[in-house]
C-alpha cells in the first residue's frame, strides 16, 4: 500500500511563508494524496483557524513574517476544536529551545528544513497514525 492510498482525502493545513518551499511541500503532499490548504502568513492562518473545520494535520513553520509559529501554535491550542489536531512544526533551527518550547505548547512533531520529500511523507503518515490511535483509544 502506498502512502497515497493511506492518506487519500486527508486535509493538511500548511502555514509556510517561503514561496519556493511551500510550492515544493505542496507538490510532495499532493503527490502523496493529501489535500493541501496553504496559508502564507500568521494573520491569514489565524482567520482560517477560527473559521474552518480542523484539518487532519497542520504543518506549521516556526518563522512567519507577522508572527511566530509558536505563537500561532499557542493560539491554535486555545481553540476547542483544534486541541487534538496533530501539529508538526517546520524549522530550520534544531536548537533544543525551539523544539522544547514547541513540545510544551502542544506540537506533536517537528520536521527540520531543508525537507526530504520521503521523510516528510513518512513523518506525516506516522503523525496521523499516532493521532488516530490516540483518538480511538479515547473513544
Amino acid at each position, binding site marked *: 500500500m502506498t502512502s497515497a492510498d493511506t492518506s487519500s482525502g486527508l486535509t493538511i493545513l500548511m502555514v509556510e511563508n*517561503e*514561496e*519556493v*518551499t511551500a*510550492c*515544493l511541500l*505542496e*507538490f*510532495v503532499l499532493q*503527490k502523496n494524496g493529501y489535500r493541501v490548504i496553504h496559508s502564507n502568513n500568521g494573520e491569514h492562518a489565524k482567520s482560517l483557524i477560527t473559521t474552518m473545520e480542523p484539518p487532519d494535520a497542520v504543518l506549521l513553520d516556526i518563522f512567519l513574517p507577522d508572527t511566530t509559529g509558536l505563537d500561532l501554535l499557542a493560539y491554535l491550542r486555545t481553540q476547542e476544536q483544534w486541541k487534538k489536531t496533530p501539529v508538526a512544526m517546520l524549522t530550520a533551527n534544531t536548537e533544543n529551545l525551539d523544539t522544547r518550547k514547541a513540545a510544551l505548547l502542544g506540537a506533536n512533531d517537528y520536521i527540520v*528544513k*531543508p*525537507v*526530504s*520529500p*520521503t*521523510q516528510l511523507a513518512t513523518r506525516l503518515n506516522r503523525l496521523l497514525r499516532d493521532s488516530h490511535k490516540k483518538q480511538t483509544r479515547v473513544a
Partner: protein
Amino acid sequence: MLALNHSDLTLRVGSIAVLCIYSAVILLLLGILLLRFIRLAKERRRRTVTETWRPLLAQCVVEMPDRLPTLKPRDHVAFLHLWNHCFESIRGDARTQLNELARRMGTDQFAKRLLRARLLRRRLLAIVTLGHLQERSVWNELAVMLQADNAFLSLVAAKALLNIDAQAAIPLLIPVMSHRKDWSPLKVVAMFEAVGPDLAAETIAKAATQASPEIAARLIRHLAATRSSQGLPPLRALLQEEAPSDDVLSACLFLFGQCSDPRDVSTVREHLNHTTWYVRLQAASALGKMGVEEDEPRLIRLLDDDHWWVRYRAAEALSNLPWMTPEKLADLCGELSTIESHEHLLPFMAQTNVGKTVQVPTVAPHSHRA
C-alpha cells in the same frame, strides 16, 4: 552701443545655459525612464521564469517531468536563482533529480561560462551552482579562488569545493583557514554543516593548531557550535606539545567546558591558578560544567581571587554544579570569610530561590487558608 552688445551676449549665454539645463534634465529623465523600463522588463522576465519553472522544479522533486520548455539564454540567470533556491530547500534523493534537470537544461555549461563573468554576483551564482552540481571539472579554478582577496568569494568557493568532494577539499582548506583573518569563524562552521559535525570539528581543530594565536583562538571558540567532540584530540595534543598563548589556552578551556569530557578535567584544574586572569576565568567556568564534588573547594577558593570577573564566574560555576541546592548554597554563603566572596554568591542565591518559589505556586494559598 557697447552696452547693448554686452547685454546681447549675456542674453545669448543665458539662453544657451537654460537650453543646456533643459537638455540635461530631459536626458536625465529619459535615462531614469530607460533604467526603470529595463528593471521592469527584467522583473517581468524573472516572474515569467518563476511561474513557468517553479511547478516543474517542484514536480522534479517527486518525478522527472516528461517535457521541459526551452530556456532562453537571457532567462538562464533567473532560472539559476530559482534552481539554487529549490536545491537548498530540499535534501535527500530529490537533489539528484534536480541536478539531472539542470544538466538537461545545459545549466552546468552556462554556469562554467558565468564563472568568468565580470560581475561578482554572477560569479558567486556560478560557484554556488557548480558546487551543488558537484562539477569536478572546475575544481582547480575554485581552488585558486580560495586565495581571492574578496573574503566572500573565497568562502563561497570553499563551500563549493566541500560540496564537490569534502575529503579532497579538507587538505586544501586547512592551511587557508589557518591564515585567513577575514574568514568569520561563524561562516566557517556554517560552511562545514553539509559535511557533518565530526569531520567539521576535526578539520577546524587541525586548522587551529596550525594558525596564529589570534586566528586559532577564534576558531577554537566556535568549535563548540559543531556539537562534536572530535575537535578535542588535536587540541589536547597542542596543549601537551607546546606552551600555547593565553588566548589559545582560554579558548581551549572554554571548549573543554562546553564538551565536558571527563578526560579534560585535570587540564582544567591545572589552570585554576594561572597567572592570566581570563585563563583562570575560563577554567572556573569550565569546572562549573564538568567538575565533580571534590572540585567544590577549588571553586570556593576562587571566590577570593584578585580579579572581579574570576570571582563572579567562580560564584556562577558553584551555583551551576549539579548537586548544588539552594540550601547548600545558603550554607556555603554563611561560611564564607570575605565580604567580596559573599557578595558574588548572593545574586546566584537569589536566582536559585526565585526558581524555587516559581516551581511551587499553589502551596502558599493552601497554607494561608489553613
